[in-house]
């Protein structure tokens, strides 16, 4: 196997540690985190804890720190995917560097087969897709009702935040208006989603 960095608790890490195939570990995943990795995620308006002190960081750095914690805590239960110009699963658990546009519809299309089989999805984004918003809403209506929560990352009160709220409403899921500020709340929600039956 090629040597690559792996997040502890990621699907690939668990597969290696437990000597199981990726397909087996994936089957047991309870939550897909679909993360925006577009260029806007480089914006320096978030923060992370460094030696227990808050420090200004990019949205991407903040999301990575949170995802690292979740995967460590909930080994093998989170399947990570990302979207920018394209959408892809990230079995290593480490998001690629932010770059490109925000093709959210591609991301949702990527994960909808899992959602239809009962896997929950948490969408993390600053909510400004390059695609037609109505198409995204329609896809959520068709395939994600009961299966989608959204978490907004960025400046509060923006159209992006409002769009993310609308998506959660359509899906009858929960909307978290500030990923960074309410990370503990969101973490509790993630644990709840994972514990719930499919």
């Amino acid at each position, binding site marked *: 196997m*090629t040597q690559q960095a792996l997040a502890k608790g990621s699907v690939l890490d668990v597969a290696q540690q437990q000597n199981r195939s990726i*397909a*087996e570990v*994936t*089957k047991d995943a309870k939550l897909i985190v679909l993360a925006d990795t577009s260029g806007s995620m480089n914006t320096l308006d978030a923060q992370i804890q460094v030696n227990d002190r808050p420090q200004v960081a990019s949205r991407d750095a903040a999301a990575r720190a949170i995802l690292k914690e979740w995967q460590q805590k909930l080994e093998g239960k989170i399947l990570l995917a990302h979207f920018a110009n394209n959408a892809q699963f990230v*079995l290593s658990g480490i998001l690629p560097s932010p770059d490109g546009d925000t093709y959210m519809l591609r991301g949702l299309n990527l994960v909808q*087969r899992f959602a239809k089989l009962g896997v929950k999805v948490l969408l993390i984004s600053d909510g400004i897709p390059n695609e037609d918003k109505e198409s995204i809403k329609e896809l959520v209506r068709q395939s994600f009702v009961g299966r989608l929560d959204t978490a907004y990352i960025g400046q509060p009160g923006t159209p992006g935040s409002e769009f993310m709220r609308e998506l959660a409403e359509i899906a009858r899921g929960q909307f978290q208006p500030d990923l960074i500020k309410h990370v503990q709340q969101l973490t509790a929600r993630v644990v709840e989603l994972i514990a719930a039956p*499919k």
Partner: protein
Amino acid sequence: MKRRSSSSLPTVLITPHCLYVTSEYKPDFPSKLRAAVGEMESYWHKDKRQWQIAPEKRAELLAFLERFYKIEPAIRYDTDLERIKDRYALDYIGNVKEGRNGYALALLASSDEWLVLFHQNTLKGYFTGKAAQSTPHTEQQKNQAQTLYDVLLVQPPVTDDEIKKAYRRMAMQWHPDRNKEAEASQMFMRAQRAYDALKTQSQRELYDLGLSLEKQLAPVLYTPQPARDTAALTGSKSDFSLYTPPLRCGIVEGKFRQWGGRIVCDEITKFSDIVQNGLTKVTYFYDLKLQVKWETL
């Protein structure tokens, strides 16, 4: 070179796929013959009272016979004498072992003849649907040569009932309460794990999604090892992973050929249980003896 009377002359009948040797008995002959031509390449047919040798060992055989008996053997030629079938009932297919260059020996049903040879790729090619193209180097790569469907010997799409029946078949063969072979626990647990993961439709659908993900991302995930030459029967020792066939006995249909005194299976096209009066034959070795059970599937 001195000529003796024809009755004591070693004789070799040469056919395209076998060399038949008849010679005067001497106690050290078997061990020296095997040393000269090879263990796997030589077979003593006790009913016919003759040695049957792999055809590619002709030069070594003739040289050996001349050295041993101090006389040139008599040589005759003929076409193949044995009729090779396309179907054999086997009581026990052994493990692929290091000393056999990647081959497993199998016992013909209701006999004590270990006659049939399967290369591990032939076995894997049927039981997993994927012949090993390269030698896996990690436990994870070995595991990933098989899907959970392969472990239960089923091809998707399958129903819940088919999965259950397939699991019971494997459990019948490998349950460690009955089967005391070294691999039994491991084989049973693999079957159990596969069954637990595949027993419902929704579980299978999720697993199938995982398989397609694995397939899509395989070029990124894995650096393929360079393909190794698969072991020739008489080739030099090469690398292979030891393999336990998932079922020990059954009726094997496929392509067979004669190789000296043995029968090599080059391809399995069908593997069926041996069933009598509604009971399925299950075999395993215990205390160096072949145990035979007839079980209800």
